[in-house]
């Protein structure tokens, strides 16, 4: 039997799946929650999750493990629609949760009224991140369309942050003297011509800007901008606050359909409510989100947030209208970007 070792190993290979299957099966036992979130919340939930687990243990004596999934908000919503079993979603904007509610029926359509402050335990806004010393002299939205300025922003089709960026620019143009829909569209068209690359999520864009050194200005979540400076050095970047920006409300909700099936309704609800607690609010502010109850946060953290003139999504007709007009197939973004 000259060849038998090889034949034996081939046989072992064929039998391997049975073993592997057993391996997978034994992995699950205790209560887990899956929080499907958008890109820049990684650090916040990394710190918040163990705090909640501790809180839940002291309240009920039960152990709970929270699993995280991150990505562009639109992409993440799509995954939940396609069957990713999220107990809670914490996404970048209300429309993405609306989409889940509409397409799957696993969330009631009035979900945004279930928790305080439009179900957003923290808010943020859109600011500019520029290279140290601001070599291109960028001070406001108008400077973004000057010749030779390269702007980095993700793709509004897949990224929630990008939609806030786009609408903030739109809102700025509307608020200029003589501003109307036409001038706003002209401005945003101009702006998109200065974008060399559209990443699919906010974190991808941040990496394009800070790691790969592409572009002169990054349109970013305020928290993402702070984080970049914090992680990669204040000697490299600085934040520029424009004259007008948008109040970004990243909402959270329980995916009832999934939670009911998995028996996690109570813990999922408690998880989201804990975001509004002093602990949650403090952590939000620490990770550069503007807390809805600033009295619970560290005053030093709150002091970091500059005062900005903020328009709201309601000023632009609400998310349903904005989504339909700008980001749906054939909407204004498609028309602009096809050109």
């Amino acid at each position: 039997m000259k060849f038998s070792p090889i034949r034996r190993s081939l046989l072992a290979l064929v039998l391997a799946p049975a073993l592997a299957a057993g391996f997978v099966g034994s992995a699950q036992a205790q209560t887990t929650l899956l929080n499907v979130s958008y890109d820049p919340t990684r650090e916040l939930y990394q710190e918040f999750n163990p705090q909640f687990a501790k809180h839940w243990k002291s309240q009920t004596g039960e152990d709970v493990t929270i699993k995280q999934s991150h990505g562009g908000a639109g992409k993440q919503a799509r995954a939940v629609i396609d069957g990713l079993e999220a107990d809670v979603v914490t996404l970048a904007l209300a429309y993405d949760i609306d989409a889940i509610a509409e397409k799957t029926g696993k969330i009631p359509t009035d979900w945004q009224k279930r928790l305080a402050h439009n179900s957003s335990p923290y808010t943020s806004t859109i600011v500019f991140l520029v290279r140290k010393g601001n070599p291109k002299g960028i001070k406001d939205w108008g400077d973004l369309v000057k010749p030779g300025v390269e702007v980095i922003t993700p793709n509004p089709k897949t990224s929630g942050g990008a939609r806030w960026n786009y609408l903030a620019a739109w809102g700025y143009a509307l608020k200029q003297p003589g501003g109307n829909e036409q001038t706003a569209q002209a401005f945003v068209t101009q702006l998109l011509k200065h974008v060399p690359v559209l990443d699919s999520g906010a974190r991808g864009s941040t990496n394009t800007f800070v790691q790969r050194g592409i572009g002169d200005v990054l349109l970013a979540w305020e928290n993402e901008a702070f984080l970049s400076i914090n992680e990669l050095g204040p000697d490299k970047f600085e934040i520029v606050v424009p004259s007008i920006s948008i109040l970004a409300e990243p909402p959270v909700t329980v995916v009832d359909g999934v939670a009911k099936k998995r028996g996690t309704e109570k813990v999922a609800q408690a998880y989201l409510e804990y975001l509004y607690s002093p602990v949650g609010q403090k952590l939000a502010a620490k990770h550069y989100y503007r807390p809805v109850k600033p009295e619970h946060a560290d005053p030093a953290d709150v002091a970091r947030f500059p005062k900005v003139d903020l328009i709201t999504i309601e000023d632009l007709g609400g998310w349903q209208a904005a989504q339909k007009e700008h980001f749906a197939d054939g909407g204004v973004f498609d028309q602009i970007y096809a050109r």
Partner: protein
Amino acid sequence: MAGATTLRLGAAADFGQTRFEARAATRETPLVKWLILGTALTFFAVFLLMPLIAVFVEALRKGWETYVTALVDPDALSALRLTLIAAAIALPLNLVFGVCAAWAIAKFEFRGKHFLITLIDLPFSVSPVIAGLIYVLVFGAQGWFGPWLAEHDIRIIFAVPGIVLATVFVTFPFIARELIPLMQAQGKEEEEAAVVLGANGLQTFWHVTLPNIKWGLLYGVILTNARAMGEFGAVSVVSGHIRGQTNTLPLHVEILYNEYQFAAAFAVASLLALLALVTLGIKTWIEHRAAAAYRDSQDDAS
């Protein structure tokens, strides 16, 4: 892509090489020779060697401690486990399928044979992202079987089965493509002789066919394994990116990179690179053995 995967039985070629260079008519001037050689080597150094070295340098930038911490992190271990599970399931499936397909194509004549050969190549010609999307469209909650699967509480997409399916799909052709030319070249005579001497089907396969194809088969297995462990696109689409649950090693690298944990990202990447180097080592060894076996069989024949 498929062309690069054929096993080289190159003992005779080396001999031809020497003769080729010894003759004035076919010899290039030294300048041309060194120019071509230099270009190839520079290209190799810049595009292959440098990134490989960079991975290890970056991984160890913050010292061994960070490196080891990144590798024994529970999420990294879970990613490693999932990667190994996916490979461990994809390999045997493709092994059985590859041998069956190659056997059928090389030894039998049937209608639609060429169509089957073309079909086997499909995963090579389709973008991995599409491969992932196919499974989302078929097994996703909004897909063909989605409602039925949900009713019976079977999870395929965004769970381990989906990752295994995507891996099987992208590694589908390797073994079959490796074996078909080999088995076709060997013909059916030895099997016919075995049958005439009274061997049954299984005996013929075990004692005649398998020994003949074993090096090619192992080579295919190695390639399949390399691709299974390294696949990103297709797996990314069906994974759902749940940390510690549905992340494979390549996806874990992306996550770490996105979280500004660059040293950790490169540490895990270096683990993948190491796996690749080991694979390459085994591959070279198999090529060497296969060439030796080929020479032996030529000697026997003459």
